[in-house]
């Protein structure tokens, strides 16, 4: 019994140490997080939206898009603010769909991707930060999946410009 306990000590210590070992943040990811803070508005969107019948393989919907977002009336227009409380506030939307704006949601960041309701698709749970600097940011959404007998292949690359509004 005693031997069992003394053998358990190093085993538990190893388990504890290994479970606690994790690289939390890197200087690069900290810098990216700092650049994320502020108010952004969308200026360009490109990608495709394909829907295929999963059984027959017939393409039922196909759209390729590559356009500038010139006004708040554009359906893909987004103006949002990200802050260090990990809250994203939607200030304006080209297609508000009955939402009362502004409205705030929580977002998550893992160093290279943004997660949460605002940055998710029908199947994807995050958007990847392709490029970011002090003035602009490009987010990528790869949203593929099957639902109700149809296969969806949605790809979007959306570019944001930082506005001069103060951030939290």
């Amino acid at each position, binding site marked *: 019994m005693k031997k069992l306990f003394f053998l358990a000590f190093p085993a538990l210590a190893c388990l*504890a140490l290994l479970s606690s070992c994790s690289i*939390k943040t890197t200087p690069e990811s900290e810098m990216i*997080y700092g650049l994320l803070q502020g108010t952004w508005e969308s200026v360009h969107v490109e990608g495709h939206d394909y829907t295929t019948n999963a059984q027959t393989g017939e393409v039922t919907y196909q759209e390729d898009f590559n356009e500038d977002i010139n006004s708040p009336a554009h359906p893909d227009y987004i103006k949002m603010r990200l802050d260090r409380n*990990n809250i994203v506030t939607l200030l304006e939307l080209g297609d508000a769909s009955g939402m009362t704006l502004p409205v*705030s949601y929580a977002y*998550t*960041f893992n160093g290279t991707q943004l*997660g949460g309701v605002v940055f998710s698709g029908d199947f994807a749970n*995050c958007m990847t930060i392709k490029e970011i600097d002090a003035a602009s940011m490009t987010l990528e959404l790869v949203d593929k999946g099957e639902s109700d007998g149809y296969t969806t292949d949605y790809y979007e690359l959306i570019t944001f410009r930082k506005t001069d509004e103060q951030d939290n």
Partner: protein
Amino acid sequence: MNRTTRLFLCAAAAFLALSGTALASDGSTRGAKSRTDSLDVQTVTDSTVMQTAPAKPRKRTKGVWDRKKFMNLSYSLQTLAPYYGNECQGRVAAAIVNGRSIYLHKKPIAGMLKFSIDFGSDINYAQYLPLEGDYNLDSEVSDMLGFSGRHHLDVGLFIGPAVSVNPVGKLVITGYFRFVPSYSVVMMDTDIYHGFTPYFTYGGEIVWNWVGLGIEGRSGSGSYSSLTSLIGGGGTSMPSGYSTQALRMYLCFRF
């Protein structure tokens, strides 16, 4: 037989007769006395019997090392920090720790030192200060639950070594280190996150007989994913990391 001889024999007979009577009377007195004595003996015996009759079994008072079970009621100062972003300051936090010590040896070393393994359960709840700023938070989650804000619940089991010293009387001073793997749930305004978090607690306590005071530090970090996304059929969400730090002060009860 001449007259002198007859007188002598009569005197002797009379003497013998008187002696026998005396003897007989002594015996009968002694007999009474012995009856009395025997009564006394019997009385004494009865009372002795009464005194030596098995008394009601009394509870053996617990020794210093016999109180192996413990329960701690804690008040905590706790913070929750995401890997990226502002830290959440605790408003109120409390914990209940139930456990048992298994001593590794019967006799204390140097008459006062013992090593043990402690194991048990650790339940911790914390509420954090609300968000600062002008937000119109989405209320879907809070409407569903019936309450809002920032809450944190950890339910875990612990195991770890401890060393106890009994320097005097019923005083026991203990130091310990524990590994506490826990299931953790955090509600952050608009979403609920959950995950496995390995905590470590380390501290000491001073106990007199069955009650004492203690202080311990607590830390741990883990990866959390959205519980509402999982329940809502949205699949797994992108995990995010949180670190927890706490200082606990507690009242300890030993059984």
